[in-house]
């Protein structure tokens, strides 16, 4: 809830009430490392405005398409819908809008790109995110990459069945289009030094090389050529240098990268055992990744530690292992203990070491950069600066291992630091965030319409292991909008203007969720408000506004659409869009009714009697209110209230001799496009007196 009362004077200062949403973030945005306006783009997707949605994603998230596939989606983990049924499938909706729009995503280049040249080492999510931000400000970034392609780990190590390569190119091509130069096949420290870059006129350098080396274990026999570092293995597969893995692969490690390796080895035709120190609950891989590996026939061996690679001549024949008695100490720190009496030999002919990644500091060669006594790059996390003030670092090389979106966030922050440095300002970055909204209260959650989350189709495991094709299919447009419409618009709801509120209790009485409390004035708790707009439409004092929409703005748009109609007939149909096809709300219908503007709203709960009158004032010859049937509307009582408001307006029109028939109510919006269209066409005829009003609608 706001810590300060809102008045009409405050609102007069705002360009749009949407500014209020900046003061308090929905948890999806708050917990997103790049703070993408999740609620905003999901809402656009819900309306079928897919391209606008994709552009909004890309405002904050440079690796939008990549994250549509592989993001660990903290937005979903923190989605307030979890308290109702299941989280909104944010990642799937994002994937749908980003891949649909693809490379056609809008590119907003800086007006002038004449600021300093900045060299970025590493074309992974962190480096590319920084490059994009710098280019947007007007710098001239060049990204140097040791591999022939941009994208970092997503492009070189994440298997293509999880992340097809054209998806990565959508993001990297889009970033390059902002004026980011790319130098592939250039390994800094080897092909060129940081000193060379400075000599070439780069005024700042950003190290974003990530964790490029696989951790290995100093086991006897581990120097055998078929003990493969996991990144080498995955990268070779990525670049079609398919390694010979033999028939029996043992993957050491229980993380997500180990799962990628195990599942990749399965696709190369091997029998695969994944062995880790942890038990099933302790292992760090995501549950879904472990389950999918299991479905694909990976055998798991928990709580075993590797001891020695067993050789027969020059061939690997197995791995000697011992039992793990504990992985973590009492404080939860990694501190494994073993039972050396419980030994077991696991047969295998290839071993893949997937026990973690580590930084490669080769770029230090030929520079004055320093590393600390533990071999880590010297770095100040506040300023992103290394031991050289003009050399910065970001991403996994200086943070803990994380996901692509976290690397993007680190890159964006580093870009801010570089901008401050190059413009001669103190590097001071304000990381403070607006507060987020609390979890939804159980009493409110109970009243929210339950809608099962829409899953995506997944290929059958026996098909999956025969190919590197993607295994999760995309939504189709209709499912994408339906899933997006599960969003509860957290934080987009009602705000009371205390100077206008008369404490009349109407809001409290019409709210379907029993949210308002009236003490001195009405108080509407933002963490509970479901943004249905019922109270806003029915408040007699015009004392409640919405954060996420403005009836005045909506009306201006409707007025423009009315003006654009050329014939005699100028009818506006306000349609509940909760069940409407994507094309309808998205404005790309092919079966529009001549002379009828279809205006979609999430529910008729927000449409006031005054707006219906204003629509007629704006030049409409009639208004059709197309509601859902009770029970189908996302908000309880909405069709009932809408019908009552229509009845009121019909009486008001009768009083002034304009005829009640100008405003029609039909409850059909949940019955499909054909039925809705037919009902609207008939209502339009009733408005024009071509058809007598039925007794029922009187």
């Amino acid at each position, binding site marked *: 809830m706001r810590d300060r009362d809102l008045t009409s004077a405050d609102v007069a200062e705002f360009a749009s009430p949407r500014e209020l949403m900046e003061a308090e973030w929905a948890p999806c945005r708050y917990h997103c490392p790049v703070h993408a306006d999740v609620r905003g783009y999901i809402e656009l997707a819900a309306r079928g405005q897919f391209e606008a949605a994709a552009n909004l994603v890309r405002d904050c998230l440079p690796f939008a398409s990549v994250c549509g596939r592989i993001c660990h989606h903290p937005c979903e983990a923190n989605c307030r819908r979890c308290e109702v049924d299941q989280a909104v499938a944010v990642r799937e909706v994002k994937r749908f809008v980003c891949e649909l729009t693809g490379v056609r995503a809008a590119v907003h280049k800086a007006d002038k790109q004449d600021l300093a040249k900045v060299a970025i080492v590493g074309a992974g999510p962190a480096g590319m995110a920084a490059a994009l931000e710098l280019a947007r400000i007007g710098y001239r970034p060049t990204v140097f990459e040791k591999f022939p392609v941009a994208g970092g780990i997503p492009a070189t190590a994440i298997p293509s069945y999880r992340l097809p390569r054209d998806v990565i190119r959508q993001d990297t091509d889009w970033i390059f289009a902002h004026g980011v130069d790319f130098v592939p096949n250039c390994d800094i420290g080897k092909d060129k030094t940081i000193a060379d870059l400075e000599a070439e006129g780069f005024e700042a350098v950003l190290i974003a090389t990530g964790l490029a080396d696989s951790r290995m274990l100093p086991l006897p026999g581990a120097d055998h050529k078929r003990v493969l570092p996991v990144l080498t293995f995955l990268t070779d597969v990525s670049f079609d240098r398919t390694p010979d893995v033999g028939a029996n692969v043992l993957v050491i490690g229980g993380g997500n990268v180990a799962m990628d390796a195990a599942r990749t080895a399965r696709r190369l035709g091997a029998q695969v055992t994944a062995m880790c120190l942890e038990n099933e609950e302790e292992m760090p891989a995501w549950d879904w990744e472990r389950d999918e590996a299991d479905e694909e026939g990976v055998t798991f061996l928990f709580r075993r530690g590797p001891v020695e690679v067993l050789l027969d001549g020059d061939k690997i024949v197995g791995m000697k292992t011992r039992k793990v008695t504990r992985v973590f100490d009492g404080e939860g720190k990694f501190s494994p203990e073993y039972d050396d009496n419980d030994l077991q030999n696991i047969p295998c002919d290839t071993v893949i070491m997937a026990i973690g990644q580590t930084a490669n500091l080769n770029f230090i060669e030929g520079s004055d950069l320093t590393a600390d006594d533990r071999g880590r790059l010297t770095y100040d996390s506040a300023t992103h600066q290394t031991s050289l003030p003009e050399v910065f670092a970001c991403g996994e090389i200086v943070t803990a291992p994380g996901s692509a979106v976290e690397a993007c966030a680190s890159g964006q922050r580093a870009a801010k630091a570089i901008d401050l440095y190059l413009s001669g300002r103190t590097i001071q970055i304000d990381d403070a965030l607006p507060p987020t909204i609390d979890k939804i209260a159980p009493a409110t959650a109970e009243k929210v319409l339950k809608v099962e989350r829409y899953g995506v189709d997944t290929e059958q495991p026996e098909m999956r292991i025969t190919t590197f094709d993607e295994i999760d299919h995309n939504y189709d447009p209709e499912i994408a909008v339906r899933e997006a419409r599960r969003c509860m618009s957290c934080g987009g709801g009602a705000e009371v203007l205390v100077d*206008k509120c*008369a*404490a*009349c*209790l*109407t809001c409290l*009485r*019409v709210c379907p969720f029993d949210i308002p409390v009236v003490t001195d004035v009405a108080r509407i708790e933002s963490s509970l408000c479901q943004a249905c707009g019922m109270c806003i439409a029915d*408040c*007699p*004092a*015009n*004392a409640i506004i919405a954060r996420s929409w403005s009836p005045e703005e909506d009306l201006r748009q409707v007025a423009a659409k009315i003006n654009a109609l050329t014939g005699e007939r100028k009818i506006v149909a306000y349609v509940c869009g909760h069940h409407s096809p994507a094309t309808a709300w998205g404005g790309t219908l092919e079966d529009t009714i001549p002379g009828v503007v279809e205006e979609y709203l999430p529910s008729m709960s927000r449409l*006031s*009697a*005054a707006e219906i*009158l*204003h629509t*007629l*004032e704006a030049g409409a010859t009639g208004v059709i209110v197309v509601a859902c049937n009770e029970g189908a509307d996302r908000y309880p009582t909405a069709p009932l209230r809408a019908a009552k408001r229509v009845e009121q307006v019909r009486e*008001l*029109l009768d*009083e*002034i*001799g*304009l005829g009640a028939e100008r405003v029609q109510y039909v409850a059909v919006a949940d019955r499909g496009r054909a039925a809705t269209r037919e009902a609207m066409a008939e209502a339009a005829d009733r408005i024009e007196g071509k058809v007598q009003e039925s007794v029922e609608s009187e």
Partner: protein
Amino acid sequence: MIVAERKPMDEIFQMLAGCKKVLVLGCGGCVTVCLTGGERQAEMLASQLNLAAKAKGEAMQVDFDSITRQCEKEFFDNLSEAPADYDAVLSIACGAGVGYMSEQFPKVTVLPGMNTTHLAANVALGIWEEYCRGCGDCMLAWTGGVCPIAKCSKSLVNGTCGGTDKGKCEVNPEMNCGWLMIYERLKELDRLDEYRTMRPLRDHRTDRGNGVRRLVLAEMTEEEAGDE
């Protein structure tokens, strides 16, 4: 609260005949609470008038505004536009608001958009029922909290009359007999003695029989009251 309801449209049209520029003015007090005279209702009435004028081909501009209370002079300072710029102000406050505003703006035609009807309680969503008639001599102490002036159609102080019929009033068979309600209530309170006591005739000077009533709080007045 004071309840008022909008006048019939024909009467409003008659009042506004010939006006080119009209302000519909809502009141943020009682009439907002009873959902008839708030800013939203002013907005909708303005909309109706604009639509009607357009349909008739008349050039009339109707604006709307609302202030916190029209029965307090300070709140008129909050008007967005000067009332004098309008041919008429159609006030949708109660009669007190209309009359007081008219007095405050002697050169402005202030017209009543409402009929002020009763003092009510909000008994259910959308229903405001009369509970008090402002008689100036409250009798609720001996009537079990049921007002004989408001609830009896004859405002008797010694009821019932002979016209009660199965609990309903002979004047309006839709209405419950007020005195029967008093009887039932006193019985429930075990205070039927009150019912049996004969009450003196009403003194109508406290009601409407002695001219304009005013409340004067000596402790708050700036000069000696009663000089007028």
